[in-house]
């Protein structure tokens, strides 16, 4: 599904990613772990197409297409979704309205007819329960005045509604209490199928305890220095990152 080959990328002339190789197949959940500044979020931004990152070398293909040549929204429409670490607020724009606009953009892209307001509300009311958010959040402005935990739940709500093929969870666990963490992990787990893939980016193995990743990769200074299964996360928890550094 997603094949990343020898990706080098820089921001403001500074090289952040120094040759990343990663391949994600349908149904897999990969976790990328690393310290602050190791390049985790940069990787997520490169995949989603954020403008201020420059890819200097390497390639990324997504379902056989050259991802790096696609616009941000084309990547999204092709099925790539990112749960943001810091979701922005959009004052005055109704949360449900925003989500319906996104869903309709996707349906239109797939050549399907748009969903009308009442069908959408029926759909979204079901989804809201899954992330344990009150329905009143639907009529509030997008992320406006939401707490950190509410924002993260709202991101997952969007994921459940848009049903992407590849979901990037950027530090989705940060700033969450244990209950919220469980709710979100459960939401993701129930959403997992043989065709849906995930790339979870995190500092801690906390989230991974609930999410059962197939692979764990450790990112240090722009390179994946070690890959393994869940036991690697446990080792990191015990020993930290320093034993992996040169």
């Amino acid at each position, binding site marked *: 599904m997603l094949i990343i080959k020898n990706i080098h990328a820089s921001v403001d002339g500074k090289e952040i990613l120094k040759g990343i190789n990663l391949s994600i197949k349908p149904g897999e959940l990969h976790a990328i772990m690393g310290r602050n500044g190791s390049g985790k979020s940069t990787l997520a931004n490169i995949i*989603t*197409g*954020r*403008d*201020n990152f420059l890819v200097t070398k390497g390639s990324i293909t997504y379902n056989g297409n050259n991802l790096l040549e696609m*616009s*941000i*929204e084309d990547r*999204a*429409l092709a099925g790539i*979704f*990112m749960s*943001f670490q810091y*979701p*922005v607020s*959009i*004052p*005055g*724009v109704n949360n449900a309205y*925003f989500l319906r*606009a*996104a869903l*309709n*953009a*996707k349906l*239109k*892209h797939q050549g399907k007819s*748009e969903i009308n307001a009442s069908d959408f509300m029926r759909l979204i009311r079901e989804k809201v329960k899954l992330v344990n958010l009150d329905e009143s959040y639907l009529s509030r*402005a997008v992320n406006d005045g939401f707490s950190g935990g509410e924002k993260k739940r709202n991101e997952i709500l*969007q994921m459940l509604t*848009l049903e992407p093929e590849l979901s990037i969870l950027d530090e989705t666990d940060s700033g969450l209490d244990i209950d919220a963490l469980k709710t979100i992990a459960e939401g993701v787990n129930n959403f997992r199928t043989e065709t849906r893939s995930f790339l979870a980016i995190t500092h801690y193995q906390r989230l991974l305890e609930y999410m059962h990743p197939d692979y764990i990769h450790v990112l240090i200074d722009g390179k994946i220095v070690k890959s393994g299964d869940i036991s690697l996360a446990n080792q990191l928890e015990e020993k930290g990152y320093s034993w992996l550094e040169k």
Partner: protein
Amino acid sequence: MPNALAVAGLLFQYRANMKNNQSIIDSAISQEYEYGFTTDIDQEKIPPGLNEDVIKIISSKKQEPEWLLDWRLKAYKQWLKMDEPDWSKLNYDDIDFQAISYYAAPKQKEKLKSLDEVDPELLETYNKLGIPLEEQKLLSNVAVDAVFDSVSVTTTFKEELEKHGVIFCSFSEAVQKHPDIIKKYLGSVVPTTDNYFAALNSAVFSDGSFVYIPKNVRCPMELSTYFRINAAKTGQFERTLIVAEEGSHVSYLEGCTAPMRDENQLHAAVVELVAHKNAEIKYSTVQNWYPGNPKTGKGGIYNFVTKRGTCLGDNSKISWTQVETGSALTWKYPSCILKGNNSIGEFYSVALSNNFQQADTGTKMIHLGKNTKSTIISKGISAGKGQNTYRGGVKIMKNADNARNFSQCDSILIGENCGAHTFPYIDVRNPSAQMEHEASTSKIGEDQLFYCNQRGISTEDAVSLIVNGFCKDVFNELPMEFAVEAQKLMEVSLEGAVG
């Protein structure tokens, strides 16, 4: 939504497109200003230039009584002594007032008995603009007065309104048929000496709309005037007067468009509102005059307008809502004089300056009565090289005990080459006053756009989503169906604002 079809017919095309959401933007790409056509029609136009004779000609064409001619001439003499105001942030070349023709009218038979006698070319023009004037086609509850260049072409639903005692007609007709009311109120809110452009208007105004709502009548339908400038090198100087008697209620809408022309055209209107005890006037504007060439800035309407209402009686209320997306220049400060105790003044505004447009707009709230209350919500949007200025004054006079004002002025910037400016003036002379002022300026963030894009929403849709969210408080004040049209207008006016 038949209402909007007639009311905001200026936006009719977007409605058709609404069925197919995607084509809104598509159609916007292929057209820059869709009301830019001209109507080829026999015209009666007096040569450019302004002097006492011109004013006499206008007055005699209108068969006006002596007192009105005197009133005009007095205003003209005052105007000659006045200087064009230069305190605004607007930059423009001097206006040559002698190069403008002050009267243009489609030639027609002396008196029109029915719509059948209106020139078909004119009816076609309004149909093109989405304003069918044939009453049988008006399914909706909206009466329309159509002003073409200097004269009112027709007013619909007159009979229906007459049943309720509501007078809605062209200003010229009102001068003939209701001279007492005109004489009583003309200039009572905006005196001829008020300002340069109001004085000019008083001297040369050609037509406009007149509304009279009798005591305790709730006007059974929305009233609407549609202004169209057609003739070249002609100014438009209309005058609107609305009088709401005790306990009455009226909602009035105006819309405006003009052809695309390379030269700037002057529009200098005056609007006067009078609300008696317990009366309420709601005045909404969607202004979409030709903004000039988006690439060169050439042409476009110079819009210098004086709008003011007096809350004369206790518990009266005047509410201004404006969506200003057109004109090369906008100079406009719809204001309220809160004379009656407990009276309320409101101003809700969205002003957009894209490309080379400049807007200097805001309001004045003058509190005279006790327990008077005013609310100001202003949303300025700047894009391209547009410059947007909010200029507002709140005055609490000595006897206005317990007056309250809330002002909120927000600006949003799209791109690097535009500007937003805010000038709030506050003058409080009574210690019991409560004033609140909030202001913000923000840029449409890369972050917001990225977030929308990442959800599969295109940049164009994202910009209009964000801007509409920004304007929501104001759009909420528009009559419902009008609000939908305003949103669409905003989308098209922002076309290309983000590269």
